[in-house]
């Protein structure tokens, strides 16, 4: 008698946690690139958001691996891959790239904020003591040290750009190199991930910047957000075009996988991929940002267009991550059919855990802002070098 053993694909093993992992990693890469546009490429109009973007990159980077650890049954074993790495396991590479990138971001942030740490370190209380320890109890500051800080920041920001691209490109590689999965296995995946990361990073900065400024009733810097809006428009065009080209490539190649992937798009992913990701959350922001970039509109209208587009693009990139990570697992290894997945709210890898993980960087950023001002131009607490 023959037993039935394969395929027995009852459940999707890479859950919403694995959706969140490339999403948060992407926010890091995008936010860092915005800060580098100011520090390296001298985009002066981005100065009001440069420090905030670097700090955002840092806090999102702290939380990027947390969804991965939440996904594991034995998270303490995760570090084994870095102790005894092997070429057959791509994940160790992410560990090294992540660690190196974290080092660069921490160093750059330290040199950017050193003057502010010194300003707070000269006071009294626990925050002052914390700041004194952060500057390694060296309270000396002069134009010469500030000049050194500027040069080091510029060097680290320049070094960080390829590292940011490598970090998120590597996350794309983790999916794109899995040749057993027809929905993931494409070299375009690396590039798509980099561009979608930049889109999500710029979007989260715009979203958060407006929210903070509206809450505090500060005056929004029009030149800065309009510049960010134009960058967002440019990067989202490339990202969405690449995503569409991937579909064109799959359809035109007509390989043995084409039929099942077309069915996947037409049935299981129709709502989340075709309708939401492309028709709603790509097309609408594209048109709104085009209106902002190509026509003269009043400042309030421009800000509304930019903020709404950024918020929608944040959702678009989340949908893209969902459609890639979950969509790829819905296809049976036999290429004959599909399974289904929707996360529960309360389970270990459910929606509540995802919401908590995604909220934590914002809370840390708030604490950060209480210690050193992230918007020195408007809140009046900063000592500008």
């Amino acid at each position: 008698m023959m037993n039935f053993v394969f395929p027995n694909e009852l459940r999707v093993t890479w859950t919403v946690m694995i959706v969140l992992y490339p999403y948060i990693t992407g926010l890091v890469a995008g936010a860092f690139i915005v800060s580098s546009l100011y520090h390296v490429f001298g985009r002066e109009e981005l100065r009001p958001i440069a420090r905030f973007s670097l700090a955002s990159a840092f806090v999102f980077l702290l939380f990027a691996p947390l969804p991965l650890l939440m996904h594991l049954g034995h998270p303490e074993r995760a570090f084994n891959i870095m102790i005894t790495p092997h070429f057959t396991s791509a994940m160790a590479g992410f560990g090294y790239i992540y660690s190196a990138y974290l080092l660069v971001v921490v160093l750059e942030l330290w040199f950017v904020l050193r003057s502010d740490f010194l300003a707070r370190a000269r006071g009294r209380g626990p925050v002052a003591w914390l700041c004194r320890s952060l500057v390694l109890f060296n309270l000396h500051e002069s134009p010469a040290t500030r000049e050194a800080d500027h040069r080091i920041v510029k060097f680290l920001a320049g070094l960080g750009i390829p590292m940011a691209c490598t970090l998120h490109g590597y996350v794309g590689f983790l999916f794109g190199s899995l040749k057993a999965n027809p929905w993931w296995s494409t070299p375009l995946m690396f590039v798509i991930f980099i561009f979608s990361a930049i889109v999500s990073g710029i979007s989260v900065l715009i979203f958060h910047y407006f929210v903070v400024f509206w809450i505090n009733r500060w005056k929004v810097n029009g030149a800065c957000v309009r510049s960010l809006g134009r960058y967002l428009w440019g990067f989202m065009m490339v990202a969405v075009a690449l995503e569409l080209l991937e579909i064109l490539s799959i359809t035109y190649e007509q390989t043995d996988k084409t039929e099942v992937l077309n069915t996947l798009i037409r049935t299981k992913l129709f709502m989340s991929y075709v309708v939401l990701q492309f028709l709603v959350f790509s097309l609408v922001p594209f048109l709104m940002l085009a209106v902002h970039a190509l026509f003269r509109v009043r400042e309030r209208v421009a800000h509304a267009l930019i903020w709404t587009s950024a918020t929608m693009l944040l959702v678009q990139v989340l949908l893209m991550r969902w459609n890639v990570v979950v969509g790829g697992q819905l296809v049976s290894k036999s290429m004959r059919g599909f399974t289904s997945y929707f996360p529960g709210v309360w389970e270990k890898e459910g929606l509540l855990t995802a919401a908590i993980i995604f909220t934590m960087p914002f809370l840390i950023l708030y604490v950060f802002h209480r210690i050193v001002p992230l918007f020195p131009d408007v809140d009046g607490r900063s000592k500008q070098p």
Partner: protein
Amino acid sequence: MRSPSEPPESGPPPDYRHAYPVFLIMGGLLVVALAVRAWLVPETFGEFGYYRGAALDEAKVRTSRYLGRQACAECHDDVAALHAKDAHGSVECETCHGPGSAHVEDAENVLPRADRQQDCLVCHRRLDARPGSFPQIDRDEHFRLVGVTNAATACVRCHSGHEPLFMNKDLRTARLHPLIHACGDCHLGRQDQTLKQPAGHPQIFQCSYCHADVSASAAKAEHHAIACTTCHLFIKENAFSGRIVRDTDPRFCLLCHGQADFRSQDGPPLITWPGHLADVSEETPDPTRACVDCHQDQIHDLFEKEVSHGL
């Protein structure tokens, strides 16, 4: 903060001394990381291959938690005999009941009964990716078909895990039959998109190709919506053939027609057994009679060739 792209302010050259401790700390962290790695890598790592060599010796002294069906049959020989002849004959006891070593050591460690819906659906839930020939159900559709009203009804209320189909013949010695292919075996849910005669396609063998008279008769009978292989159970044995059983045990018919408190009258006609024999017989009921002895015309006509096959 001044943009680094701006020309430097006039003044003294940059003073990097405050940065030295930072880079020193970073360098120190790297050294510590390398030292920790050297300390954490197990001594026997790489002895035989890219793994911890001592793991082999540790694995050797471990005892198996799964003991196999022979261990179960030593005490539960009656259940083992039932189990071996029926459709679950190739499924190990511990697949449903879990590892049995603790139970063998101490009978007080009772194994789980495996009577939840999920225990059955893990294999039998309809999944397009599974071979169409494998028995699989959409629970709601299946319950509708057999008139079960409570969605929480356990599968074991009708199907015993040990004897799920009450086969009246031992499946291991049942008649050999060429492989039966139906379009749905491969094209589950997409049969309407399949070409009639696709080039290079494997030959399709449907029941009607060889048993045209029976198929034509079955198509007109009350059971016409039931697939032939529902009653003539076919279990694939190799790439060319399998075992086929005509299941005439009344308990098999009662899987659909048995009266039960969880069944409504909206489903198939329901009877009690063996009470039904007394209801329809004026003489002393014969408990050896099978349903098909009276209800053959509601299934399909019998023809000489099929009678000789015993199928």
